[in-house]
């Protein structure tokens, strides 16, 4: 600070732009080491889950073969608890969607990152710098949303693809030889990406509403897991509770990424995706409202 002379002013006229804001948010996202660590962790968890699930599928496959053989021989089917009893076709469909089995856990990390991407701005008062440079708050919010959307979609798809291929050598040759990368598998990968994308919206929304890292993450967990448990416990008490259960976000996520849903299913993959989109859009919109129209105090 010894020099008191200032270099000559930038002569060109500079203007605030949406593209600039988007670049700024991307720069802010990629210059935090935490985000890279979380990225690796997310991919590692999702690949690990796919690999672990492959061994479970091998057992299901063996049982399915035994059941099939017994039925063909006209004998009674072996005693297996019904939730572990699948047909060969069902096991094959599950194997087609093996890339996405870690989605529920991986997407929690993604949602956390999304919460922190906005919550930490308030916690560190970075938000003052951000909003001083860009007073058009919708631009900031939409930029954050776009950066997170692209990133979480890619992380979801990459993890699913990687998980799928890592699981192949672990799977029983009987299964893997019947698999090929076709439309159902690719749709499953895209579904996982979309699920991660929607979770990032939810995270960003709750982060913006609560302006608090822990609070935002807790809200996502409550909505995704706690609500599912509570509805599960109460399912017997009223019909509407049971009717509503398939529309809980985590169940919608399952439905959306399931390969080989029966034709006459209540909610098909696309419908599940749309309903899940509503679940994610509501917090994202409320967050946008709070972010844009209320004072920037942490």
């Amino acid at each position: 600070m010894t020099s008191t002379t200032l270099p000559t002013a930038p002569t060109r006229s500079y203007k605030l732009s949406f593209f600039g804001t988007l670049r700024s948010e991307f720069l802010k996202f990629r210059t935090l080491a935490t985000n890279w660590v979380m990225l690796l962790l997310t991919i590692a968890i999702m690949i690990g889950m796919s690999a672990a699930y492959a061994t479970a599928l091998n057992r299901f496959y063996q049982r399915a073969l035994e059941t099939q053989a017994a039925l063909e021989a006209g004998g009674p089917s072996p005693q297996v608890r019904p939730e572990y009893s699948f047909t060969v076709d069902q096991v094959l469909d599950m194997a087609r969607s093996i890339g996405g089995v870690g989605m529920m856990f991986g997407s929690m990390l993604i949602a956390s990152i999304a919460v922190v991407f906005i919550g930490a701005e308030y916690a560190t008062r970075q938000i003052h710098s951000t909003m001083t440079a860009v007073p058009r708050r919708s631009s900031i919010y939409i930029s954050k949303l776009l950066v997170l959307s692209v990133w979480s979609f890619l992380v979801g798809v990459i993890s699913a693809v990687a998980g799928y291929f890592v699981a192949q050598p672990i799977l029983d040759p009987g299964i893997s030889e019947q698999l090929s990368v076709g439309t159902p598998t690719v749709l499953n990968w895209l579904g996982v990406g979309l699920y991660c994308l929607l979770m990032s919206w939810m995270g960003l929304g709750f982060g913006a509403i609560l302006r608090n890292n822990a609070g935002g993450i807790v809200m996502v967990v409550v909505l995704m897991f706690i609500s599912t448990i509570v509805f599960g416990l109460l399912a017997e008490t009223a019909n509407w509770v049971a009717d509503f259960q398939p529309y809980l976000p985590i169940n919608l996520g399952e439905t959306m990424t399931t390969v080989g849903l029966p034709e006459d299913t209540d909610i098909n993959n696309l419908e599940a995706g749309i309903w899940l989109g509503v679940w994610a859009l509501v917090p994202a919109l409320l967050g946008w409202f709070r972010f844009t129209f209320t004072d920037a105090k942490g």
Partner: protein
Amino acid sequence: MLEVRNLTKQYGNQAAVDGISFTVPDGRVTGFLGPNGAGKSTTMRLLLGLEKPTSGTALIDGKNYRSLPSPLTSVGALLDAKAMHPGRSGRAHLRSLAVTHGLPASRADEVIEMTGLTNVASKKVRGFSLGMGQRLGIAAALLGNPQNVILDEPVNGLDPEGVIWVRNLARHLASQGTSVLISSHLMSEMSQTADDLVVIGRGRILANSSMQDFLALANNDRVLVRTDERDDFARRLKERSVAFDAVETDGLLVQAPTRDIARLGVDAGVLLHEIIPQVATLEEVYMNMTRDEVEYQSGEFAGQPTPEIATGTPWGTTADKEN
């Protein structure tokens, strides 16, 4: 130019800022003074559009902050030190701001050099001291080479060299036609930096004038007189019913014009070896003005000596010690 008109901001029932108006003209440094909780930072946040005023307006070059086409080149602001993510490097922080306006990355490096942060710019902000954070905040404020500069407590935590740098920077910016609004609790620093003063207390304007006019508010027609025959001279003053107080061992604070005192000395045949008109410091005027306005008043220490008027001479302090 910054213009604040009838600005009011209420939090619940309490008005943090209550109908204040003032202008920060181009080419001048305006000091913004007030006790803690007086509403300085709130006013600055309102100017920057971070909060919405309950009523009134805060305008930047005649425009609302949020409708500025190019905020960074219109206003550079330092609101609080370390208003930045600790996990990012100083350079990344500045670039993230620069890129919003399409400013080149080299501009970030320029302000890093100006603020003397070249050696630490690639380190994470987490490890920065308060002073380094303050410098980075100033760097961010200068990024767009703005027409208006708002600095909230910029010298907080700076080393003496940094304090002088900020003073010179403010003067330099004003000489280039920039309007500068600067708040500080360092009165001596402010008296050397500011052209104009805005003083607020409990959300209201207490004074809004040039530095000179502000200092003239003080009742400063007192004169310090030193003489070896103090009692004699005191009697003479009493005869003419001139008010005075005894200070130290040989001094009198006399409430009369200098010339009259000197004349009286000659007439009485008393040798006056010091006749010094007392000039109030910014601090004194400020303390008098805000005494009743402070939100958080400090308790008095037991046995606290009543502060004596500084004489401005080295002998004064020596005499003090002898007491």
